[in-house]
Each structure stands twice: as C-alpha cells, then as structure tokens.
C-alpha cells in the first residue's frame, strides 16, 4: 500500500565532484561546505567592527568568543588556558558551521558526516594535548602521569597501565571523531527518513491525511538538529579543552 523506498546510503552521503573527478583535487559538496565553514567565520571576524559599544555583527562575534572563553576555556582549563582560546574557538566555529549546513536548503549535508573531517579534527586535538603535556611536564613526566595514575597498588600497574595507554592515546581521538561523525550522520539519516516519508505520503492517496503529522515531525526534527549541531560543536571543543587541561595539570 505504501511504497516506501529508502535510498541506498551512498546516495545520501556520496556526492559527485564539481570538477576534477577521480583525481586528488576532486572538489565536491563536502569540500565546498568545508571551505565555507572556514571562510564564513573568518569573514565574520574580519568584518566585525572593533568599537567600544558593539552593535550588529560585532555583537554576535563578541558573544561567541565570550561563550567559548567562559563555557569552554575557563570551566575546563582555567585562567592559564587562555592561550588555547584561538585553537578552541576555531575548532568550535569550524565544527559548528560544518554541522549547520545540515539544515540549510540546497546544501542539506553536514560536512562532518563524512569521516575525513572529524578524523582530522580529532588528530589535531590529539597532537595538541600530547604536545601540551610533553611541554608542561616533560616527556617522562607526561608518560608517568598519564600511564601510571597515583594511588594504585604497585602490582595493579600491570593491569592499569595498558588500559590507561589505550584510553588516553587511542580511545580519546577515536571517541572524539566517532562522536561527531555518528551524531551528524544519524541526524542526516533521520531527516532523510522523514523527508522520504513525507514525499511518499504525499503520493499515497488515502494516507495523505497523516502527512501533516509527519511534516510537523520533520520541522521539529530540523529544529532539533540545529540544537545538535551547536551541542556537538560545544562538546568537541569542550572535550579538547578537558584533554588539554589533563595534560597541563595532572592530578597528584
């Protein structure tokens, strides 16, 4: 009765290249969104005026910086983490603008729903917290504080050290990348599912009475995805800040 045909996953996440197909320089929708996610925040920050009483664009930019400074840097690292604000702010903006294209018509694809973007961001976070740790505590000190947590009986280190190694150096970047990727892919598939459902109901003669319900859900989920985009950007930069803080001040 209801011929519901869900498109194969390749149709949802793989995009043909605008130019340079099958070469290293292939440029598709994901590349375009990534470029925009880099350029839009940069333009916003460059165009905003630097006046004492902010107005318009400057308001948005300043409150964003303040949000990241208070909610991410100050709450996770503390005052000595101010020098990581540029990194965390650019991460926040890039992830957020990569995500928000999920709900912008004609794009409707989060750049972070392809694994490449989250992996690179997670590798940046990984390299940052390791280099910060090595710089703050020295190589031996960093290894000691991250692999040999204090207050554990000596014999238990046989068990604890491999677990700590796995969780610190492998699961942290893996978790960062997979969290962002899976959240955005799940949101994208959710919106596609309800979009396909709405189209199918529109074509089904009798069932069209259910369409308003399904369409209302689609609208609601779109709003939900805006919130998810923001929360994922926040969580990504917050977790990076927490890892930096753990490298900066090890618990004794």
């Amino acid at each position, binding site marked *: 009765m209801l011929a519901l045909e869900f498109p194969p996953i390749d149709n949802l996440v793989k995009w043909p290249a605008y130019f340079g197909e099958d070469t290293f320089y292939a440029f598709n929708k994901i590349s375009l969104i990534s470029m925009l996610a880099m350029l839009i925040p940069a333009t916003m920050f460059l165009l905003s005026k630097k006046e004492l009483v902010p107005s318009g664009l400057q308001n948005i930019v300043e409150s964003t910086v303040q949000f990241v400074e208070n909610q991410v840097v100050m709450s996770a690292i503390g005052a000595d983490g101010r020098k990581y604000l540029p990194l965390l702010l650019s991460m926040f903006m890039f992830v957020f603008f990569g995500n928000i294209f999920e709900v912008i018509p004609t794009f409707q694809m989060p750049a972070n729903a392809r694994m490449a973007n989250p992996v690179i961001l997670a590798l940046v976070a990984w390299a940052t917290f390791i280099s910060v740790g090595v710089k703050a505590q020295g190589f031996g000190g960093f290894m000691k504080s991250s692999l040999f947590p204090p207050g554990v009986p000596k014999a238990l280190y046989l068990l604890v050290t491999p677990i700590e190694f796995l969780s610190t150096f492998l699961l942290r970047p893996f978790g960062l990348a997979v969290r962002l*990727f899976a959240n955005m892919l799940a949101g994208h598939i959710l919106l596609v599912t309800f979009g396909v459902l709405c189209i199918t109901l529109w074509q089904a003669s009798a069932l069209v009475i259910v369409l308003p319900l399904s369409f209302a859900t689609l609208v609601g989920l779109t709003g939900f995805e805006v919130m998810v985009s923001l929360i994922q950007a926040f*969580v990504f930069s917050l*977790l990076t800040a927490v890892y930096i803080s753990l490298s900066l001040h090890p618990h004794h």
Partner: protein
Amino acid sequence: MSFLASTAAQVVELAAEADAGAADAKAEAAASSAGFAYGLAAIGPGIGIGYLVGQAVQAMARQPESAGQVQTTMFLGIAFTEALALIGFVVFILLKFA
C-alpha cells in the same frame, strides 16, 4: 569429452550459486541483526543519560548558583555516555550497508 566439460561447467555453476546463496544468507543475517545491534546499544546509554541529567537537574535545583558548572560537567558526562550508543549506531551502519 563434451559431456565432461558440460558436467564441469555445471559443477562450477552450482558452486557459484552456493557461494552466492551463502553471501545472501550472510547479508540477510547482518541486515536483520543490525536493528538488534543498535537497539541493544541504546539501552544502557539511555538509562545512563536519564539518570545523569536527572541528577544534574536536582543539583541545579538545590544550588542554582552552581548551575553553570553543573551544566558543563553534565554535557561532558553526556558526551562520554552517548559514545557507547553512537558506536552501536556505527555498528548498525556497518552491518546494514558495508
């Protein structure tokens, strides 16, 4: 000779069919277990996030002045708890489509 050749061709055909059947059965089993993979993976994190947010709301209601800090910690906790469900979702995608 031609009889032998045709028999050999038949055997090869049957083997290919059996292979395809096994691959089909495997794909079918993977597709039907995909739903279970995500459903089971969502139980624990669902309970966990509910408990976590409930406790955070209680903490914020008792001490509204520490709401900001509680909120940040709550998001951290949600991020860690949610990771398990998301890995289940990735397993679902792998089973269903890969």
